[in-house]
């Protein structure tokens, strides 16, 4: 399998903290790679560094081409879709305006988006700030899916969602993964087991494990890499998961 995203010796300093300390891993073309780790180990920062939203040093190659010195809008223009951790929908804009803003180079896939999230068509004229958390997550994911992507960066898409919605979001991501590559940060190990082919585990700003998603079936390994509660079906934030009860919103990752 060819490598789509290649990260080598990635360093990020934020507010005097050395958040990423030489992170390096590959994201293979096709399927979902899950980026795992406890809160604050640098998962969100890694995604933001790839996008150029965090000041970074190191090498980042997308399809063999260097993007580590490019500006965010140019990186995204190469075909990166981004679903941020806290949704970051534009509250004062309508659902339709949120989607329209995301259209790149024409060819928007409104049909796909409305097929996956029919509710968004009905709520097109509603301000995004008045939507529920789950509906806002739909807008955030739809915004990324509106354009064909070479790589999707998805940050905790099930965070704070009700159990039924967690399953819906997982189903959508499963469908997306049939055609697009994704790097997924996710606390819910049930969702990760269902979706991911490959896993990368971070700890204290470094990669401590890379392997196949089946590694998560090894409870001892999960416990060693991810800490307390993994073997008993808890998510990385300590809440019960296994695609079950939603995790309470953890603190924002570093």
């Amino acid at each position, binding site marked *: 399998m060819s490598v789509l995203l290649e990260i080598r010796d990635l360093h990020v300093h934020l507010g005097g903290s050395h958040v990423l300390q030489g992170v390096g891993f590959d994201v293979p073309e096709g399927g979902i790679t899950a980026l795992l780790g406890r809160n604050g180990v640098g998962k969100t920062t890694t995604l933001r560094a790839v996008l150029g939203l965090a000041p970074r040093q190191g090498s980042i190659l997308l399809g063999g081409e260097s993007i580590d010195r490019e500006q965010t*809008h140019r990186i995204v223009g190469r075909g990166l879709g981004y679903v941020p951790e806290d949704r970051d929908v534009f*509250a004062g804009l309508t659902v339709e305006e949120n989607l329209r*803003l995301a259209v790149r180079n024409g060819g928007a896939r409104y049909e796909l988006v409305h097929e996956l999230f029919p509710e968004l068509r009905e709520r097109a004229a509603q301000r995004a700030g008045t939507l529920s958390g789950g509906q806002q997550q739909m807008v955030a994911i739809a915004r990324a899916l509106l354009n064909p992507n070479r790589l999707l960066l998805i940050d905790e898409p099930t965070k704070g969602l009700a159990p039924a919605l967690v399953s819906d979001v997982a189903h959508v991501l499963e469908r997306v993964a049939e055609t697009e590559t994704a790097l997924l940060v996710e606390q819910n190990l049930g969702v990760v087991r269902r979706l991911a082919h490959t896993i990368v585990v971070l700890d204290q700003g470094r990669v401590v494990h890379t392997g196949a998603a089946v590694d998560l079936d090894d409870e001892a390994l999960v416990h060693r890499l991810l800490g307390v509660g993994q073997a008993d079906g808890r998510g990385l934030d300590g809440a019960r998961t296994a695609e079950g009860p939603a995790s309470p919103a953890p603190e924002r990752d570093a």
Partner: protein
Amino acid sequence: MSTFVLLTITGLGLGAMYFLVASGLSLIYGLMGVLNFAHGAFLTVGAYATWFTESKLGGISSVGLRFAVASIIGLAAGALFAAVVELVLIRPLYLRHIEQVLVTVGLSLATIALVQGIWGSDARIYETPAWFHGTTDLAGTHIPNDRWLDIGAAVLVLAGLKVFLRSTRYGLIIRAGVENRAMVTALGIDVRRAFTLVFAIGGVAAALAGILSGVYFTSVDPARGTSLLIFAFIVVVIGGLGSLTGSAVASVVVGLSQQYVNYYSTGLGDLSVVLLLALVLLVRPATLAGRTA
């Protein structure tokens, strides 16, 4: 009653000028987080470009046509100057707020010094169409026509900006950028173009305020930009940083209170505006964080 009507219309005219300056300030802060202390310089450049152009158009016999042509040049000069300031001075200092303040304060002072150096400190008389100096009778009083001009211009600018923000792609980008600039770039949009555009729009509005102030006060002087900028900043803070509608409402409130208090308490108008600002900050400090365009 007639005095009250006159004060009201004059206050609205003054508020209109405050709004023209404040609208650009508010959008620039809302989108870019830049406290632009050089905004008064845009006004000065527009006003002086208009006066200078008009003085060189002696070949055109019609005062109205001369003033119209000069005003267009003045507006263009304001837009161009503002865009160049953004590209050359602000862009390299993106996210370096202290340096931005220092640069814009320095530019403001330098512009005044430059204008004084070239044309002196004395006020320069504006030659304007006769209708501007006439009056219109309303409710038993004579309202100077230029007040209608100020109010009409501000209403048109407010409506134009609203339409622009609602109906165009750049308007959408600006509205979204006021909420979350980083997310706009994460959607693949080069938000810096919107920065330059917002500066240019602010420059046009400020230049228009400069031209109208020339009509209102019948002259323009090097310190005009600074004196109007102080009240525009107060308007922006009261109205909510980044809020266009808030700036419009606050402009009216500030202009009216200044006129009423000036008349009924003999010259305490400016103090009343400062007290109003203090009151708003005490009662609703959240206006400082208002970021809705």
